[in-house]
């Protein structure tokens, strides 16, 4: 499925403050819990967006939902698919935890959850947030959700 025209999450590095709020908003949105303190208190978080940092430069990275995703091709269990809406999704029931997708992803956007099952950004379209939580919670509008050419 070749879907290139779609809304994606983009990060404007110039405005990223490295506050890591996106990571916590992501972990909360995907927790299924109604309150962030209840969801994340005392837990190690496994967010699907990660802030890369080197000195003053900070930059949040998550799945690019590639037009021709290499993770889909590499998955030995057929657990990753690019759906009609362009979103690359992981069927966690099928994932065998071989980590091939982790190795091949050029952005480092796939990682295991606390149970060793692979997870990545699926744009919060199917969780309680309904829109990307990282975008909604970014205090400096550094993360945006838009269609680019």
């Amino acid at each position, binding site marked *: 499925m070749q879907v290139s025209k779609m809304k994606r999450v983009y990060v404007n590095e*110039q405005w990223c403050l490295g506050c*890591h*709020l996106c990571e*916590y908003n992501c972990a*909360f949105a995907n927790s299924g819990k109604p309150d*962030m*303190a209840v969801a*994340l208190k005392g837990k190690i978080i496994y967010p699907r967006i990660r802030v890369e940092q080197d000195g*003053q430069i900070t930059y949040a990275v998550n799945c690019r939902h590639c037009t021709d995703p290499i993770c889909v091709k590499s998955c030995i269990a057929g657990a990753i698919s690019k759906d009609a809406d362009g979103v690359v999704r992981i069927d966690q029931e099928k994932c065998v935890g071989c980590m091939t997708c982790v190795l091949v992803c050029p952005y480092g956007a796939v990682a295991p959850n606390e149970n060793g099952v692979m997870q990545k950004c699926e744009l919060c379209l199917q969780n309680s947030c309904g829109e990307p939580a990282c975008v909604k919670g970014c205090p*400096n509008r550094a993360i945006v959700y838009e269609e680019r050419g």
Partner: protein
Amino acid sequence: MGVNDMISTFEVVRNEQRCIQCRVCETQCANLVHYYHPDTGLMMSDESKCVNCQRCVALCPTRALKIMKNRCRMRENANWSQDTILEIYKQADSGAVLLSSMGNPNPLPVYWDRILINASQVTNPPIDPLREPMETRVYLGRKPEQISRKEDGSLDTKLAPQLQLSLPVMFSAMSYGSISYNAHASLARAATELGIYYNTGEGGLHQDFYRYGAHTIIQVASGRFGVHKDYLEAGAAVEIKMGQGAKPGIGGHLPGTKIVGDVSRTRMIPEGTDAISPAPHHDIYSIEDLRQLVYSLKEATEYKKPIIVKVAAVHNIAAIASGIARSGADIIAIDGFRGGTGAAPTRIRDNVGIPIELALAAVDTRLREEGIRNRVSLVVGGSIRSASDVVKAIALGADACYVATAAVLALGCHLCRTCQTGKCNWGIATQRPDLVKRLNPDVGSERLVNLMNAWKHEIKELLGGMGINSIEALRGNRLMLRGVGMTEKELEILGIAHAGE
């Protein structure tokens, strides 16, 4: 460090049930109040460093933080307040002049709050601004004394240069240096979109902002920083800054630590040197001297731009304004004693100058009495907080208002009043790159535009209620105002009747 430095003004209250140790408070605090203790896994705080800027509170994702007034108080004393005592300790430690930022926080009278606006009932219909056209546009500059005709009998329509404002509000002077690049970018973009003006302050105009020149008022102050030919030609008007409401009678001092990179280039002074604006303009000791500078600037700009003279509201303001009107200035800007600042000596900020409401009424009355009100437009600033303050100012006789504190509040300022430290956590009053980037001008300019559009709607509603459909028809219409809880003298100076009269 003295032992008294340990007395904290604020306390950090952290709800441990909610705190998830995400450390956002730690990364966001330039004052280094919050830190993570790895052995206990707890967030700790050194509240002696807290300035209550509310950055951590605003960004805490679980609402776990509160900044409170420190409940640990010294023994109560109605004469010696704790703040007064702490200032004594501070000076005993440092031997230095106390510095403060933003406007006078003391409980002195706010006359706007004692003035009420009229509305139409029964005998004169109010106007619904959603149905009827309403004019909020104003022009600032010298107006003709009388209608004159050319030799062929046609009307002489040539006017002195005018500034056109879509609503009677402008962003007042804040220099690049005292505020950040992104704060200036936000103001410039918002002023352009709104069809109003922002003001460079005395720090020159960054080369990136020349393209907003049509909506820029450029300032010439006593330090003459960043003044050159292109600068004078870049703006829509030139403002001579004689004084500032927060610190009448003294100059300015931007420390060398803030004169870095572009700030140094824009001010045209070497990096790391203190930018000291003298208290007086050393070439101005009289109205005649002022006239020379006014006309020098008119010559330099080929009489195409109005010249503004900005003064602080002080005791003899009416006489001073009369002199300025006669100096050839096109616009007089008056800054009241509650006006903000990026840094001022505390004693001056809190004790020098007079309220803008009284100054405005006195100046408008005096200029009318002398028959020279048409020669100048009046712009007032010094804590205009809302659309109703604007309407009251116009009715008292102003042509437009200057706002700066309201504008920086829209940009995120929480009035912690520590601009002088240069560690503004909201990216406004700082030059530290990691802090400056916290103010995204896309967000900042949008919020400024929202604020001004909201005020414009409110101004129209207030006008409509009075049955007036044009802001020009309200100017100087003091019959639309009534005072409450004021003395005869106060009412006399304001030129308004008491409520019930």
